[in-house]
């Protein structure tokens, strides 16, 4: 049972070192992070600041070299395949590059069927599964009839990222890590995709962790913003606190590097 007082996910002193000896680099350095149910947080930082490494540690794709991770108040245990499977039912991700996120030898149907199977619905009749896949696709404005028996690389980048959201729709996780999901997408599709993702969040009430270098995105979608520099959180708080009144030099520079922050950024019109 979820512990009411504890956050859904908590990391204490999370660290990751790469290499050894003189080549040793500290990619993530003593990071504390707590995710409450249903909130949207953004981790902002430059390239190489350790955002993606942190995301992969949260996901359990790479193991941290220091610190502890708690999920639903208990220490996270992903030592075996079954435990990993149980953990990944709750935490999912969308990656930066849609072109490399899909196995080019696997058809779209298989990608979506895997999600249905992971939710334990692998034994449903074929028609029911197709119905679920069609529903997921129509949620992201894709037509399943056009996609069936196609390969992911036959789609555009924006369509692939929408397919990723359809995956999340079927998987229904508690936490979603969105690792720079719009950085490879053109500006028009970007707004559509963010729009769909936020709509999905409202629907299934998941926690979303945006990882981005886009301060504007952080300001407009998140409940909480973390600024990351050299593997450390240097500033955190609500978007108003952090972005409108930055304290640290690094944060100020990040914000000044953004060409222009629109006063009003309506996702539906961009």
């Amino acid at each position, binding site marked *: 049972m979820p512990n009411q007082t504890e956050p859904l996910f908590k990391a204490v002193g999370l660290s990751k070192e790469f290499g050894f000896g003189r080549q040793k680099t500290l990619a993530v350095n003593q990071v504390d992070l707590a995710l409450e149910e249903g909130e949207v947080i953004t981790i902002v930082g430059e390239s190489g600041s350790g955002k993606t490494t942190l995301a992969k540690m949260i996901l359990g794709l790479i193991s941290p070299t220091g610190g502890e991770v708690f999920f639903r108040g208990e220490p996270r245990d992903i030592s075996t395949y079954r435990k990993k499977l149980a953990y990944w039912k709750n935490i999912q991700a969308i990656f930066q590059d849609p072109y490399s996120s899909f*196995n080019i030898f696997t058809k779209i149907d298989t990608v979506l069927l*895997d999600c249905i199977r*992971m939710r334990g619905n692998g034994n449903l009749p074929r028609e029911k599964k197709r119905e679920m896949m069609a529903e997921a696709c129509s949620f992201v404005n894709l037509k399943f009839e056009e996609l069936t028996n196609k390969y992911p690389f036959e789609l555009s980048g924006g369509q692939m990222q929408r397919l990723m959201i359809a995956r999340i729709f079927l998987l229904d996780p508690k936490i979603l890590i969105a690792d720079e999901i719009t950085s490879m997408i053109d500006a028009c599709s970007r707004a559509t995709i963010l729009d769909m993702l936020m709509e999905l969040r409202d629907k299934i009430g998941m926690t979303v962790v945006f990882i981005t270098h886009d301060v504007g995105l952080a300001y407009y979608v998140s409940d909480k913003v973390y600024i990351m520099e050299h593997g450390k959180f240097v500033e955190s708080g609500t978007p108003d606190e952090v972005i409108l009144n930055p304290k640290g030099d690094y944060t100020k520079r990040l914000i000044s590097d953004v060409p222009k922050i629109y006063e009003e950024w309506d996702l539906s019109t961009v």
Partner: protein
Amino acid sequence: MLHTIKEVFRSPKFTIGLAIFVVMLLVVFIYPLIITDDPLDIIGLGTFFEPGIYVNLYDGLESKTYVLKLEDAAANRIASKLGEQERLDIQEYLLLAGVPEEEIDIEDTEKLLELWLNNYDPTVRFPGSTSAKRKYYARLDASLDGLLSTEAAIIAVKNEETGELEEKSLVKQDDYVNVSKVANVRVLPLGTDNFGRDMLTELVSATGVSLRIGLIAGLVATSIGLTLGLLSGYIGGWVDDVIMFITNLFIVIPSFVLLVLISYSIGQEQRGASTVAIVIGFTSWVWTARAVRAQVISLRHRDHVNLSKLSGHSVAHIIIFDILPYIASYVVMAFILQISSGILAEAGLSILGLGPKTTDVPTLGLMMNWAMIYSAHIMGKWWAYFPVIVVIALISFSLNLMNTGLDQVFNPTLRD
């Protein structure tokens, strides 16, 4: 996927390589259906019969004769006995015997022979002439005997009661037989080897066996290398350490030395072609394992692998469906090269006398070994080793060509 396969067949290098290979395969499969002789049958009593058409002389005499008046028949007959070299040798002898140089005309056959008959004396020893030279002149003298005669040869049968020869038939100099009418004619396009076996039949059979050895060796090497490379690359950690330790051990021991030692310890009688193939495969997986491992390491942190993990797939599923297809092209290329190097390794082993046992089936390496032991290369019996070399080179060439073609398709930066 289908597109890639189409691309592969559009590559001229691959298609040429494949065509050569397929032609060889067809010959290997179809030839034994037509010529059903056992390739190890000893048909010739003697070593290294030259390539050619062998006509049974007895049947030839019995066959219907035709008379052909051909002007150059006599000249050809003389030329076959008395060639340019023989004429020069005769001149040399005559000079030693004291015949004035201006009297000798080596172009005039009749005069030359007359001089020879008048001056040749087998008992005379000229200073500086070796016994080999004297024997040569004795042989030459015998072969020239009756060269200019126009008499018919008599075929006689021995009367069993009286022991006298009775004339049966005459063979005149302008008698001919039609080869197709002679009962027994054997074509030996590549002659016979040192044991008197038909080289062509043996070569075709050996090519088949060698290809089989290459295929088995390639399969063994590729599957060991692939399995170890995948496990070590994907799982990492101590599994990687252990596998890499073993792999590095095999790398520092030269594989051919290992191959020789293992083959030697198995013993001649136990070494069938398949055993040798497996031993070759077992010693040549190392580079495949290392290369596969390197590729897997670069793949295992890709996003599609991460996504597959997040989709709840097991390690085996990820390795088979998310890693293997990405390195399949490389594995196919490595496999092709392993076949070719397996065939070469068998040839190398057999030349050292450590190949498959010799009583079972011929292999290309064994044929080279036999040719070498019986000094075919010193005696100029080219048909005993040259066709074998050509076949080995063709197999290697076609497989490497296919490999290069595949490389160009899968690795677009290499396209010209």
